[in-house]
């Protein structure tokens, strides 16, 4: 492994939360970096972190996770449009990157850019 998998919002939205996190985690544990359209909820992110730590071993040391919002400054009308779309279609704005920390050394975040530093 060691590839990149991009998972669409459509693929994940119909999965129940447990299966969704299992899919993401199993992919990351197998050594791939996962990119997700949109973002996980705070609860899902916390559950994923706990799950990763419960699985820490010599071969798997945990995960790196980061979210790119895309646009740091939005107008009020754009924020309103985003909320309506979010309400109708779920949270599909931005990009979430999750990868195994054995491969990713660090993800440097800022609201408009992610820098993924590989080992």
């Amino acid at each position, binding site marked *: 492994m060691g590839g990149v998998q991009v998972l669409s919002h459509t693929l994940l939205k119909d999965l129940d939360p447990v299966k969704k996190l299992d899919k993401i985690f199993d992919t990351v544990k197998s050594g791939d970096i996962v990119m997700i359209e949109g973002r996980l*909820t705070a*609860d899902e992110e916390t559950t994923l972190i706990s799950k*990763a*730590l*419960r699985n*820490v071993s010599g071969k798997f*040391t945990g995960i*790196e*996770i980061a979210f790119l919002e895309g646009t740091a400054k939005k107008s009020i009308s754009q924020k309103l449009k985003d909320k309506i779309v979010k309400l109708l279609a779920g949270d599909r704005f931005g990009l979430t990157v999750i990868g195994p920390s054995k491969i990713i050394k660090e993800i440097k*975040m800022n609201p408009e850019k992610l820098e993924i530093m590989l080992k």
Partner: protein
Amino acid sequence: MTSFFSNKLFRFFKFFKKNQKISLGLYGPPNAGKTTLANLVLKDILGEDAPEFSTSSVEHETRNVQTVEKLELKKNGRTINFNLIDTPGIATKIDFEDFVHDGMKKKEAKERAMEATQGVIESIKWIDSVDAVLIVLDSTLNPYNQVNITLVANLVNKNKKIIVVANKTDLKKSNTEKIKLVFPDYKIVGISAKTGEGIEDLYDTIFKEFY
């Protein structure tokens, strides 16, 4: 008339609320100074009899949730009764080889890594048990990372009261303003848990936000 009774009722409940004990959690990433802050608070309240938790420059020194119960913070004639909960630093990865690099033997490093992972899981579980949280961040580091953002979002979702503590203001690289930019919606207090600088501001803010 209704308003009169609702005001009375509000004061009645507020009185009992003020006499309630709150569970105050110290949360944040590893090596941010949570335990140093806990030791400072305990010394301020309990004096020389205060227990002193172990601190270290090596990450994950705190690997169990440490609690001290029945504390009273007094200021300007007011008192907050609370239990202090010092938690292991939240991280998304723990590699025993990092501890080896810090000079530990492989066996010791593996044990520490195992305990540290359990500690983080325990920290996350304890979020449900706290009423209010001091999120302790190292103000010399970039605060914009997913662990900090997830932690704050999770606490907000669970309706926990939050103060962000920008620690290590005694260091040259300290940048409290950057923390204010990343978390503009929360009270930010700059302190040095090592020297005690800013601690009275933190106590004032605790009374403002949690009392």
